[in-house]
């Protein structure tokens, strides 16, 4: 009973975190699912978003303007990865790792140190974990929830435009896209930019929420993003067909991820092993479609009986 109470009391925090990371996960969805590229830039650009926002807010900038600049910083980070890939022919995974590593230095330069705190008592912020249980408009669940829904709306619109459709086509079939006059290199850069813009935006929220930006805040972000995408698809894939709903599923996946993590911690799981747990879960879920195919292929071969090489 006590555990249940603990869980319930932790729920608003988990939901807030899940919502903030949901924006990040939607960014991952843009590259991983739409562009069909695994982009590791995000571990760096997430922290970049947090660092930029915190530094600008401490400097007295308008909060939303600081968020916008964080978004733009993410766009730039994505552009670097995109160009490393399309202009210099570096495989996307490696391109992302190179940018991510560079961003470590850049993030240090932005903050001037490895960790920059921002105190909600001294500085006005958009979101803070202090407010998670307040029944008010500035409760992070409401603020981030509204922003998240707006973002889903904008993305739904964008991926329905001529440009958005051409990005989707690029992710599905590059040969066909080029044959239809689509500049696939440009679209890849654009998609990776958009993804990292969202990721940095999410990082900017998280830094305010937790009251500091940290050089390591994006470590393993890609795994959390993927986990959210996979959980969302596993639970809602069958019922959510519409594109906007699929993005919503990713956000819900992220919320569920944080609730589960919180539950696991409350039940006494060693918090040091959390990342190992996350990685394992993601690895297993990534393997499932592969195993399914293998199983299906074996089945087909059997039922054809001896007719191999047919």
């Amino acid at each position, binding site marked *: 009973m006590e555990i249940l109470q603990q869980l319930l009391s932790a729920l608003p925090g988990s939901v807030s975190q899940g919502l903030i990371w949901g924006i990040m996960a939607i960014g991952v969805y843009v590259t991983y699912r739409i562009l069909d590229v695994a982009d590791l830039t995000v571990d760096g650009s997430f922290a970049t978003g947090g660092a930029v926002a915190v530094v600008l807010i401490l400097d007295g900038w308008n909060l939303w303007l600081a968020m916008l600049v964080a978004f733009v910083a993410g766009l730039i980070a994505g552009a670097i990865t995109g160009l490393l890939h399309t202009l210099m022919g570096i495989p996307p995974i490696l391109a992302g790792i190179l940018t991510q590593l560079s961003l470590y230095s850049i993030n240090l330069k932005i903050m001037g140190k490895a960790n920059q705190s921002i105190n909600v008592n001294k500085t006005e912020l958009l979101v803070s974990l202090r407010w998670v249980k307040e029944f008010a408009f500035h409760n992070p669940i409401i603020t981030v929830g509204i922003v998240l829904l707006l973002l889903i709306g904008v993305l739904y619109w*964008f991926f*329905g*435009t*001529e*440009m*958005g*459709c*051409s990005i*989707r*086509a690029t992710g*599905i*079939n590059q*040969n*066909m*896209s*080029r*044959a*239809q*006059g*689509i*500049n*696939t290199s440009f679209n890849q850069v654009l998609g990776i930019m958009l993804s990292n813009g969202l990721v940095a935006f999410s990082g900017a929220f998280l830094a305010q929420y937790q009251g500091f930006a940290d050089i390591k805040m994006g470590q393993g972000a890609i795994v959390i993003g993927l986990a959210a995408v996979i959980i969302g698809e596993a639970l809602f894939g069958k019922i959510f067909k519409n594109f906007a709903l699929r993005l919503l599923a990713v956000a819900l996946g992220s919320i569920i991820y944080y609730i589960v993590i919180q539950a696991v911690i409350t039940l006494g799981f060693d918090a040091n092993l959390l990342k190992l747990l996350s990685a394992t879960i993601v690895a297993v879920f990534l393997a499932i479609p592969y195993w399914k195919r293998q199983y299906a292929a074996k089945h087909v071969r059997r039922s054809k009986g001896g007719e191999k090489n047919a």
Partner: protein
Amino acid sequence: MLDIINVQKTFNPGTVNEKKALNGINLHLDDGDFVTVIGGNGAGKSTMLNMIAGVYPVDCGSIIVDGVDVTKLPEHKRAKYLGRVFQDPMTGTAADMQIEENLALAARRGQRRTLRSGITAKERKEYQELLKILDLGLENRLTAKVGLLSGGQRQALTLLMATLKKPKLLLLDEHTAALDPKTAKKVLDITEEIVAKDSLMTIMITHNMADAIRVGNRLIMMHEGRIVVDVKGEEKKKLTIEQLLQLFEASSGSQFTSDKVMLSK
């Protein structure tokens, strides 16, 4: 008009895998010409189409489509002038997008992709009408994912996409080869219909000799990266498979061999 002037292409030059795929191709087509291309394995047929489409850069020579020198243009820019259908039905469409979305992508070939809507209500009606002509039952499945279609349906759709925005030149690379005979015939019929309707300048690679002779107003045969036989007009109409093989042997100095080409019907 299409002019291919002394185009050469060697793959993997300077390595053990060096392969001279095109050995000085010269070809002039007039508007409305429909050329069929035949040749053995590795003769360079696909490479010729890929050079026109800009899949790989040429080593030397130039390619001029409708008065525009496209030799140095990247693939996506040349697409403005070209419609393409590939051998593999998977290649020509985006499987994970709807039929109407694929058509809408094709309708914007050669245009800048803006922030306007990717597909309009008016287009949907047009596509429905167009799909009716194919007579494959696709007109009621506009929002179905293309991945659900059969190979023949996908090729017919790709053909429609390639010609939705009237191309200067239509490139067909064995686009019926992966289909069963009945479906192949259907797709070829649709091809002839579409090409005739807009009198499209067309190059069609085929491995079916009878088709190559029957369809179009000109026939070329390729061998070791060269065009070795070129028959047009009345002469082509009267051509038989035996004559064609003789022509081939006379100009290439070798027997025609291919594991795919059907020498009879």
